């Protein structure tokens, strides 16, 4: 047996078409790697808090003490955490799985105050620029970053977006999902305004909040990781309703929202439900259009987790009724344990939707993605 080690460190002169764009993939700092990028006043504070601190996990994925909710083959050999090695990510996701362009979504947690939340996003953006998007680590040009923004401080977040907008390797704004109130509240308008002014979609990724922003359901806390993670989609369903009913897309007609890792099958009945209440009570919301029309024009969901019934035909029909080719963007969620392989995802999609979902929609949503990239000899092509 031999082990394929593909580290060309140089791309071919030959160009190849982008066929898979991965909209959900997670780089993470090596130990101590983020600290130098933090504003000076927080460096020692954050390090002191981390001193002697153990795991904070309390909704645990299966076999957590061994897997840490990761693909267990994604931990680099230097002892750092999964997702911390740009070379290993390159090999596993680009070369072996066949993803062509990766929209990196760092999840570096938050702070205890709005100011701290913002400071972490500032550090995360600087760190991405220096440690992932730079010419050494991104020699292949396949990594794109996210302008991470703290919705806790919308004005500061808007300034952060303006600061990084125009960076050729920054493709989206990334926000957390759990903050209250929901996204329809006008207090967040500066973020939508900055994003749309710069042609950037805003992606919303689930993480974990604290206390009643864990999220907590209207009937209290779930018991297991299983019921918590499945019901997380209820939070996204509410955000969709808030964005639409509270008029965000009327205020920002160019705004594109990407819901990452919130699943998507619920969007079909939710559209019916929103249209039904709109038909009964529409005028009080002052909407210009039917709710489902806003979904098709403004809302995107990533494919992972790709949940299916036993009868795959039901899934296919559901995608057709939903017009999923107007809604979905492929995602792998590497290196998390819920990783979806692009070839596996593609084969479960209706033929006529495959290209749109695997890459064409992404090329439309993320304005600065190339349609062709330098070829990588030995790369798997997931098609």
């Amino acid at each position, binding site marked *: 047996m031999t082990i394929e080690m593909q580290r060309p460190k140089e791309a071919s002169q030959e160009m190849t078409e982008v066929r898979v764009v991965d909209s959900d993939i997670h780089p993470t700092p090596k130990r101590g790697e983020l600290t130098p990028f933090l504003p000076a006043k927080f460096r020692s504070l954050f390090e002191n808090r981390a001193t002697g601190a153990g795991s904070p996990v309390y909704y645990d994925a299966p076999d957590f003490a061994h897997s840490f909710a990761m*693909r*267990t*083959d994604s931990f680099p050999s230097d002892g750092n955490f999964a997702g911390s090695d740009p070379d290993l990510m390159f090999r596993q996701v680009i070369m072996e799985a066949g993803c062509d362009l990766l929209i990196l979504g760092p999840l570096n947690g938050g702070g205890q105050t709005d100011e701290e939340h913002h400071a972490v996003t500032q550090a995360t953006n600087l760190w991405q620029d220096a440690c992932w998007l730079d010419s050494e680590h991104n020699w292949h040009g396949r990594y794109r970053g996210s302008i991470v923004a703290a919705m806790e401080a919308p004005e500061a977040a808007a300034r952060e977006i303006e600061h990084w907008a125009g960076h050729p390797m920054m493709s989206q704004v990334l926000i957390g999902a759990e903050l209250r109130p929901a996204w329809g509240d006008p207090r967040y308008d500066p973020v939508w305004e900055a994003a749309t002014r710069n042609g950037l979609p805003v992606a919303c990724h689930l993480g974990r909040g604290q206390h009643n922003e864990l999220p907590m359901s209207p009937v209290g806390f779930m018991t297991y990781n299983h019921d918590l993670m499945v019901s997380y989609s209820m939070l996204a369903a509410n955000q969709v309703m808030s964005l639409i009913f509270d008029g965000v897309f009327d205020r920002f007609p160019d705004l594109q929202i990407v819901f990452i890792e919130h699943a998507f099958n619920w969007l079909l009945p939710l559209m019916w439900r929103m249209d039904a209440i709109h038909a009964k009570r529409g005028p009080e919301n002052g909407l210009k259009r039917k709710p489902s029309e806003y979904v098709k024009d403004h809302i995107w969901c990533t494919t992972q987790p790709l949940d299916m019934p036993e009868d795959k035909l039901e899934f296919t029909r559901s995608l057709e009724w939903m017009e999923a080719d107007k809604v979905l963007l492929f995602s792998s969620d590497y290196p998390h344990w819920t*990783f*979806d392989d692009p070839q*596996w995802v593609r084969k479960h999609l209706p033929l006529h939707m495959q290209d749109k979902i695997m890459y064409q929609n992404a090329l439309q949503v993320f304005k600065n993605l190339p349609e062709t990239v330098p070829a990588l000899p030995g790369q798997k092509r997931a098609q």
Partner: protein
Amino acid sequence: MRERTTVRTPLARGREHVVATVEEIPPGEHKVVPIGRWGVGVYNVDGRFYAIANYCPHEGGPLCSGRTHGVTVVDPEVPGGAAESRAGEFIYCPWHQWGFELATGTTAVKPEWSIRTYPVRVQGSDVIVTA
């Protein structure tokens, strides 16, 4: 093993292979041998040997990079009400933690999803896999 293993020069299929000595795979250990496209994992569970394909039927994960452990059963007598049963007899995929019984390749939850298993026998000090 973090690299995705593919077998460049597989041993011929459909015949007996001496893959290891008994001492090479002590109880609780396993060895991946180059048979077929993805390799075959040979496991020693308390002196009983099993062989499975190194490939998860769910999304194609490298199954033998996963951990073996038992299954959880209800046990009202212990604090927490649950206990591990049949320790070490199941392999769990390193990607999505789907578990399969080493002896049969099946799972309790969805038996129609199963992994490929191969006959193993011990002759003298040799572990012999038919694959």
